[in-house]
Structure formats: C-alpha cells, structure tokens
C-alpha cells in the first residue's frame, strides 16, 4: 500500500509525514514561544528556550520549502467528490493561507533576532546570517507581527482541524483518513476510479 508520491485520490507517504511533522512542530513552537517569553531571568531555560525556538523555527522553514517543492513535483490528490463546491473553495483558500502564515511567521521571527545584524545560530551547528535592517525598530515591529501571526495561524489551524473532524464524523467521508494514510476507499464516489 505504501506509495511515496501523491496520486489523484491518495496522499503519499512523503506528504503525510511532512503534514504531521509540520503540525507537531508548529504546536511545539507555539507553546514554547508563549512559555519562553514569560520565563524568569534566572530560569535555566531563559536562554535555552529562545535558542531552541529559533533553531527549530529555521529548520521548519527549510522543511516548508521542501514541502512546497514536493507539492509542486507531486500535486496533492483531488478533493473527494463528496466535497461541495463551497467546501473546495474554502479548503483551497485555507490551505493557501496556512502556507502563507507559516512562511510569514518564519520571516517575522527571523527579522526579530537579526534586527541588529546578529546571525541566528541553528542548534549550534551553523549560523543563518542577518539581512540589513528593513524598518526602524525592526525588533519591535517584527515581534508584534510575529505574535499576531502566531495567534492567527493557531486559529486557522483550529478551523482546519474542525473542518477535518466535520468531514470525518458528520459527512463520514475520507478527508481525514486520507491524511492519516488509512483511507482504503478514499471517498465513496471515487470508488469507480479506484477499481482495478
């Protein structure tokens, strides 16, 4: 059953793994970000927390590039035919927004830490250099945007997850199972295509 690439009706392993990897990382970064900004100065994590957040965040950026590249090379399956036209449209907009928010988050985060020309160390292995400052008080502007984007992303992720649950429990279609890689008959009405 294992297929790496996406087909017209199924997600392949690469897309599935990337999807859940990004999802877990985003939740981890969100929690870590909220927690670390309120740490006491004498907390052992006062320095470790932000360093980890930045390292993971920049790695996620690279993974996102990979994901978008993969998506272009191996396009996702068509929406299940049980989806209405409105649902397809909403899903397309939501998915596009999720990607945009993720990239904007990575960029705004990068612009906080590099505002004074300091590079960002990634897990102590290498450094991502800074760009020349773009705006006055860049660390404040980028910081406010970063926080705002983070909450927007989490809100949109909640909608995304609720929509998936709605398809699973109310519409009883294959939307969620496809992304879990357990959809044996991807959607009721595409069974014709699925026949050998």
């Amino acid at each position, binding site marked *: 059953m294992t297929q790496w690439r996406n087909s017209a009706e199924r997600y392949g392993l690469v897309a599935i793994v990337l999807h859940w990897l990004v999802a877990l990382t985003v939740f981890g970064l969100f929690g870590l970000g909220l927690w670390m900004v309120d740490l006491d*100065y004498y907390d052992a994590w006062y320095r470790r927390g932000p360093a980890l957040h930045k390292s993971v965040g920049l790695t996620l950026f690279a993974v996102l590039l990979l994901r978008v590249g993969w998506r272009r090379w191996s396009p996702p399956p068509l929406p299940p035919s049980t989806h209405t036209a409105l649902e397809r449209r909403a899903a397309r907009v939501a998915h596009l927004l999720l990607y945009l928010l993720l990239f904007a988050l990575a960029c705004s985060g990068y612009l906080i830490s590099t*505002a004074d020309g*300091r590079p960002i160390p990634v897990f102590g292995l290498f450094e991502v250099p800074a760009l020349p400052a773009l705006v006055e008080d*860049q*660390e*404040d502007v980028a910081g406010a945007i970063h926080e705002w984007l983070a909450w927007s992303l989490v809100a949109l992720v909640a909608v995304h997850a609720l929509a998936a649950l709605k398809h699973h429990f109310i519409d009883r279609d294959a939307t969620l199972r496809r992304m879990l890689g357990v959809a044996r008959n991807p959607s009721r009405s595409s069974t014709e295509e699925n026949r050998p």
Partner: protein
Amino acid sequence: MKIRNLFSAIALGLTVAAAPATAADYIIDKEGQHAFVNFKISHLGYSWLYGTFRDFDGRFSFDATRPEVSSVRVTIRTASVDSNHAERDKHLRGSDFLNTGKHPEASFVSTGVTSTGEGSFDISGNLTLNGVTRPVTIAAKLLGEGADPWGGYRAGFEGSTRIALKDFAIAKDLGPASQEVELILSVEGVRQ
C-alpha cells in the same frame, strides 16, 4: 530703621528676581551629538551592562559664579533605549521594564542646585520614568566651558544618580545584584 529694612528687602528681592537672568541658557548639543544619557546596571553581580537613550532633548542654565541659580531640564524618548542588542532592547521597551508604549517619555526637571565644591554640584529634581515621578539628586561636575572653534560658547557637565528599579515600578526582578541602575548624564550645552 524701617525704611532701611524695606530697602534691603527690595534689594534682596531684586537680586533674587534678577538672578535667573544672569545665568546663561544652554541647549544640550543633540545636533552635534555631544551629549549622552547612559545607564549601567550590574549583570548578575559579575559585570556592568551599559546602555544609552539615543533620543532626548534638554536645556540648562548655568552661572559658574552662582551655581544655585542654575537649572536643568531633560526629556528622553524611552523607546530609543539601546543596549547594543536588539532582542534585549525589545525586552527593555516592553512591559517588564520601561513600558515605552504607555510611557513614551521620561524626564528630569531640576528643583534646586547646591554647590558641593569647586565645579561640583548636587542637582535636586524630579525624575519621571515609567510613569512614576520621584525626587532624585544628581551629583554633577562641570567638565569645562569656553569658546568653541566655530564662534559659539559651550559648557559640559557629567552627573549621575542611582535609582532602584522597584521605585519606578519596573516589574522585572533581575536579582539581588541588579536592584539599582546608575543613570549617567554626560552633556555639552551650546550657549544661546
């Protein structure tokens, strides 16, 4: 007797009234950037952390022969805090420290100057920082005064005072060695 008293009273009144006019007015040289509002605070008790406020304005009046008629007023844009580390500066501007969104300006306005020796003074005044106004005393020294090469006249001072972060409602506790910060004003004024 009565009349003599009256005359001396008038004479005294005139001297007091006339006194501020004899002190020369100076504008702190921000244009040429010969003025600094710096601070230093202990880091963990192991070293000094220095920072500066890049944007401020101020003026003073000063008379070397009568320092007690001198006065000074400085206004600082708190968001211009700069400790040579963007992430820390962002933190300093936030609610843990200076609340620069809510309190964009800090100021020092003198209320009295007393001479404490040759070219040294205690400047009493009100410091407003983070929305809190408290009296402080700046120990100041005249560094030098005289004609500049461009046809003007300048006088320079340096003064410092120590304040407790808690006194100015600064929320963050940086530990036992860092309860107080030293403010250092090092300014050159151009006589008007």
